[in-house]
């Protein structure tokens, strides 16, 4: 089963929920931090990360001896990532989506591919958790291809927990697609509600069952609760704002480590997720 933890809005406690859930379960599991722009789960799981593996994407390499400057590569490219200027063909590697169209269309076979670095993938272990995350290279705009590479590392069977990035656009979709259950983390404020609605919209587009965790449940108002009821989204957990939890978090200490009584609640959360997912026809 793949559980993807998402939030719409950043800073709602997504990483806290994902990491504490993972730390509370005795079953072996794989944890993927797909928030490749700002991966933080390793700070809480304290996994020993191995040697970084460079993640790349293919971009065009033009052989000027073969190129006749016909311009077909520039015509097919939808991303303006390769153009003919004067006597040269100029690829703009950072705009390239690696579709291979230019290589395919070139009548002279003048285009091959070379790798361009997107970032790194690091892997480690902590207790029974196999941990994998991606770290986008600074200045790199393309998060989704790196997210897909992180996801490809997970085995098909067993439990996988994914920490997704915030927002509702392509990086989040890349981290949610194919999951069996989406756990949405929100806070009961107008910002939290607004972004939750967008996240639920994305979940509905993908057609995946979802449930809600409400963090800092005592700060804010009741509108998130009303919305959840209207939409038929089960509230699986509530966490009140407690300064001691916030302080533990600020030091990078997982909640279940600082306050072991929370472990049971996360185990129950997992059971509720299984029930909710199985109830909707998802294999356990």
């Amino acid at each position, binding site marked *: 089963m793949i559980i993807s933890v998402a939030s719409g809005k950043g800073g709602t406690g997504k990483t806290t929920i994902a990491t504490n859930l993972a730390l509370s379960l005795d079953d072996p599991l794989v944890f993927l931090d797909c928030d490749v722009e700002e991966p933080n789960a390793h700070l809480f799981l304290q996994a020993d990360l191995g040697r970084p593996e460079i993640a790349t994407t293919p971009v065009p390499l033009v052989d000027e001896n073969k190129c006749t400057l016909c311009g077909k590569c520039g015509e097919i490219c*939808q991303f303006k990532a390769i153009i003919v200027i004067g006597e040269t063909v100029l690829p703009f590697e950072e705009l390239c989506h690696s579709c291979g169209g230019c290589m395919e269309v070139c009548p002279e076979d003048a285009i091959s591919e070379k790798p361009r670095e997107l970032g790194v993938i690091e892997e480690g272990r902590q207790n029974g958790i196999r941990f994998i995350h991606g770290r986008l290279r600074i200045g790199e705009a393309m998060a989704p291809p790196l997210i897909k590479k992180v996801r490809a590392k997970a085995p098909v069977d067993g439990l996988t927990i994914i920490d997704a990035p*915030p927002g509702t656009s392509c990086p989040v979709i890349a981290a949610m697609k194919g999951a069996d259950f989406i756990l949405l983390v929100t806070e009961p404020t107008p910002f939290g509600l*607004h972004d939750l609605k967008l996240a639920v919209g994305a979940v509905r587009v993908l057609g995946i069952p979802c449930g809600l965790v409400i963090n800092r449940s005592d700060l804010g108002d009741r509108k998130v609760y009303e919305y959840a009821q209207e939409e038929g989204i089960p509230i699986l957990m509530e966490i009140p704002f407690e300064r001691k939890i916030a302080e533990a978090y600020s030091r990078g200490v997982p909640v279940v480590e600082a306050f072991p009584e929370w472990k049971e609640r996360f185990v129950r959360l997992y059971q509720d997720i299984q029930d909710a997912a199985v109830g909707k026809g998802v294999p356990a």
Partner: protein
Amino acid sequence: MKELVVISGKGGTGKTSLVAAFAALAKDKVLADADVDAADLHLILDPHVEESHGFESGRTAVIVPERCTQCGLCRDLCRFDAISETFEVDPIDCEGCGVCVYFCPEKAVDFPLNRCGDWFVSDTRFGPLVHARLGIAEENSGKLVTLVRQEAKKIAEEKNLGLILTDGPPGVGCPVIAAIGGAAGLLIVTEPTVSGRHDMMRVTQLAAHFGVPAMVCVNKFDLNVEQAEGIEAFARENGIKVLDRVPFDPVFTRSMVVGQTILEYDERSEAVESVRSIWNQCSEVLGL
């Protein structure tokens, strides 16, 4: 005209609440919400929409069954596995590269433009606001961010306003890169946590990479004073100006619930005092 872009690296540090407070303090400005993925500034500014435009970007392949002979060439060529066994294109996986469109021997693939979202020019009690709404599961948020900033700049020029105040997106990827180029200054709002520190360090690298001068302020500093000091020390060592700190204050949440800035909600709160001081420091750095 100068643009101050407020970013955070990590989400949820209080960036938008701070921008809203600045909106109440700054004079002669245009406001821009460049966090198009999760645009929240309008929830406080209550804009009156005066102009609304669709945003089109990119295309998605659509196979027309009547013309398709199921030869399979498109599936062989598609690197995004977007075409199913039954020759339907999954619009979520389709990257819009057009390879299937180009090579289809039957010309059976249509390639319509995507409507990815909307953008608006509005009036608020603090001046003009340019904002946007990215469609769910849509891409090209970087382009929409660029558009929001360009429109804000046009308004600033037309109305002779000296400042653009931009609420930026979180992270370090495509939307943030689109949000910071050419800005006069960046304010990084962070929080005193290991995650806040980690993401602040990454976003300062990004600022340096694009050569935009950055400032840092720690919100909710009293949740972990030691961590706040560590962040500030890192900033100083890297030539980033450290501004005043903001305490953890529920006034931020309470004012948000009623759709007000903290200045309107409780002018005498401790948070207001520090936000005022941060705004003055920013104005000085920008030479406003």
